[in-house]
């Protein structure tokens, strides 16, 4: 095949790569993107989007089931719901198909050339892509590595057979009767909760002493309570040892040292994700690493001139919106603009039940950094809109500098609270003070009033509590 050359070559069309390529195309840079699979990466194909589809279906099913028992205080009685999981998965696949097709269309519209194949570095400026038509050599002035991440396997529980990763869990067409989830991070909890709502018996095995160990206990407490309500058994401080000798179970060492066998049809290993640093020729260019990740600076530059890295391969937090922002920034840097990573925060959401939003510093983290803080919580049980939605669990919490009242963090837990994350992020990026929030008119009746009230409470004069 004839060699190609371009100004900017992006390896991987996940959230980091495709945004980088589209933005570069918009800026008139001659851009090529290499991707072996469908565009959209983990996020669109086997991550954020399909899991949100499954969670929505599970919520709807669970709601219908609650109406069927005749005890709904709303006075609604409905028949017992039935689930056609294969149809649910087809619906989910339809959404994924629309989105990945949309990304391909956006890439083309912005003038980006797409090479379908597996790319591999020959040197810092040359990539070989294995395509269906043969090996395509691409030479580029600047290269962006956006190879993403993959589910981390446990050595004692390799994927295969009953042991599945989140990608396979999202494609199951029949419901497992008994599901064990290894790992109580956000992926394990989101999927474990969804399967429990759909009717599986779910056990969650977590080595640490509590669920969602990256979040503070105050935030995760309502999630723990809800899991108990849903009949999910959470074993904390427990270690998944290996498959039980007889088929269909997992050997677990519990927190008190006892060995128990949990029966299971499927074992979902959600023990985090690891950067994809193999199989694309990293050894050919020998970049400086930062642990398992590629080391980058404030402009996503690696240790090699003209080679950038963005997205999950560059480290935590491994989130699509961080990848989007890095991708756009690198495209602008490649176009000669002055850009540097200066975000105040990268908000994060767990689509658990209830949802958790984290933006900026928690009170603990701020105090640990030696900052004197003012913090206040407004519970949704004092919020009218939350009552009318039967969403009284949870709260919004603000954390600000004690002296200047500059907001350092806004956190919350509650049903549907993910949509409030934009406001949280905006307040932090704009450098808002508690007084700014307090003086902003918030719509009544909405759950967002919780932010206003939390700010007022931190200032010492809440109205509704």
């Amino acid at each position: 095949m004839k060699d190609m050359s371009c100004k900017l070559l992006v390896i991987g069309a996940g959230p980091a790569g495709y945004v980088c390529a589209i933005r570069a195309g918009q800026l008139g840079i001659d851009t090529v993107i290499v991707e072996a699979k469908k565009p959209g990466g983990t996020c669109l194909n086997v991550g954020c989007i399909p899991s949100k589809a499954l969670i929505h279906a599970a919520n709807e099913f669970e709601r219908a089931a609650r109406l069927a028992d005749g005890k709904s205080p709303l006075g609604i009685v409905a028949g017992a719901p039935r689930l056609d999981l294969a149809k649910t998965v087809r619906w989910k696949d339809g959404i994924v198909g629309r989105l990945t097709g949309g990304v391909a269309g956006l890439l083309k519209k912005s003038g980006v050339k797409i090479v379908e194949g597996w790319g591999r570095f020959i040197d810092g400026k040359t990539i070989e892509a294995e395509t269906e038509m043969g090996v395509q050599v691409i030479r580029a002035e600047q290269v962006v590595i956006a190879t993403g991440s993959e589910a981390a396997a446990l050595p004692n529980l390799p994927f295969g057979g009953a042991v599945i990763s989140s990608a396979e869990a999202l494609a199951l067409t029949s419901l497992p009767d008994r599901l064990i989830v290894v790992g109580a991070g956000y992926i394990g909890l989101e999927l474990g909760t969804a399967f429990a709502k759909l009717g599986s018996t779910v056990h969650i095995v977590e080595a640490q002493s509590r669920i969602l160990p990256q979040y503070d206990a105050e935030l995760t407490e309502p999630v723990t309570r809800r899991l108990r309500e849903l009949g999910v058994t959470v074993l904390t401080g427990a270690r998944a040892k290996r498959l039980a000798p007889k088929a269909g179970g997992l050997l677990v060492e519990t927190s008190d040292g006892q060995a128990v066998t949990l029966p299971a049809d499927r074992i979902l290993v959600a023990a985090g994700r690891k950067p994809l640093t193999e199989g694309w020729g990293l050894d050919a260019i020998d970049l400086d690493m930062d642990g398992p990740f590629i080391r980058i600076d404030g402009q996503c530059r690696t240790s090699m001139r003209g080679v950038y890295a963005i997205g999950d391969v560059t480290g935590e937090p491994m989130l699509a919106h961080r990848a989007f922002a890095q991708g756009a920034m690198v495209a602008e840097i490649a176009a000669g603009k002055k850009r540097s990573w200066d975000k105040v925060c990268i908000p994060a959401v767990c689509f658990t039940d209830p949802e958790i939003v984290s933006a900026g510093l928690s009170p603990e983290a701020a105090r640990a950094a030696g900052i004197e803080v003012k913090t206040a919580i407004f519970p949704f049980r004092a919020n009218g809109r939350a009552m009318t939605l039967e969403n009284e669990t949870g709260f919004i919490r603000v954390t600000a500098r004690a002296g200047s009242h500059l907001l350092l963090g806004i956190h919350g837990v509650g049903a549907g609270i993910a949509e409030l994350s934009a406001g949280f992020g905006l307040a932090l990026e704009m450098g808002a003070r508690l007084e700014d929030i307090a003086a902003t008119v918030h719509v009544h009746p909405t759950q967002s009033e919780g932010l206003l009230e939390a700010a007022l409470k931190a200032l010492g004069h809440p109205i509704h509590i």
Partner: protein
Amino acid sequence: MGELVLKLPDVGEGIAEAELVEWHVKIGDLVREDAPLAAVMTDKATVEIPSPAEGEVVWLGAEVGDRIAVGAGLVRLRTPAQERVTATATAREPPMAAAGAAGHTGSGAGARPSAASRNEPPPAAIRPPEAVPSQPVEGVRHSAAAPHEGGKPVASPAVRLRARDAGVDLRQVHGTGPAGRITYEDLDAFLARGSRTAPVQAMQARTSVEDIKLVGLRRKVAEKMSAANTHIPHITYVEEVDVTALEELRAKLNLEKRQDAPKLTLLPFLMRALVRAIAGQPHLNALFDDEAGVLHQHAGVHIGIAAQTPAGLMVPVVKHAEALDLWACAAELNRLAEAARAGTATRGELSGSTITVTSLGSLGGFVSTPIINYPEVAIVGVNKITMRPVWNGAEFVPRKIMNLSSSFDHRVVDGWDAAHFVQRIKALLETPALIFVNG
């Protein structure tokens, strides 16, 4: 207490040393992690060196203007940590304009340490936190260089973007908003201060001699000029051009132009004339690699326009003038001049010329001896337009006359070529219709 020696990081491809152009700290300063310590300049860019850790500056390894080898000690910090470590900071690629703006934003003499204090780190322990006036004292140390509590300046994303485009380090800007937030107006005020001139002193005999070390852009200009003048045997050729017709045309075009069209100066006409003259003598639009003995003759005409900016001499480049019409030349010229003046021109816009025009406008004088923009082979200097009496064979008539003083690299351009080139430009400018006629 630990000590940390920060070494000059590898700031660029194949660069073995860099020039220290500014200290942001002095001995005794408490710095935070990531606070800018110094700015160094390489052939390619000015690079900010951030602090790898929090600590007290106890030793500075160089003075402004010194050339420092990559890997040489730059700063010694006394850190709260126990161990003594050596760090190589990651260099932060900075805005282009930082090169020029350094002289305006820097802390000047206060940042220059005396030789004695540089070599003798004082054995003082870290001082207690310095309180920042009007802000409450908090449990975090403030450094003198970073007036923003928590180290990171508080500013909205739009303000941050604008600062980045203007090459301003927000840590140097005083925020007047709530919680020290930097507003748009604060940035305006900061940028305005940057171009303020020193007050004029009263009349008196002065006997002092000030030694001014050439640093940053000034030093680059000096090096480039001496390289050009040492390497290139210049031949300078001066000819007068009757621009009466051209000035009439220009005035008419400006009078009747569309409102959104740029105002025409003489330069766009000269650029179009250059493009036509180069079509006949393409070897004058070239870069001469004298070591390899190769003349790189370019098909694209990229005209550098020497311009005086607050930061010093800059040469923004109008790329592909052959593909731009008169109005497009004028628009691009305006845009670049504005960007160069504002310090927002990108490196791409300040490099890549194949021939240069130098014009001082009404300061253009009668004759100049332009120095070629090495490694180009020709530079066209524009002198002032003056009304002069010209004998037309029957009487003296007032005509607008302008001299062109042009220099050529005599190694690759013969006198005949030079004369022919300038005569061709003269013919085009004297009968401006020729500029626009094909063939």
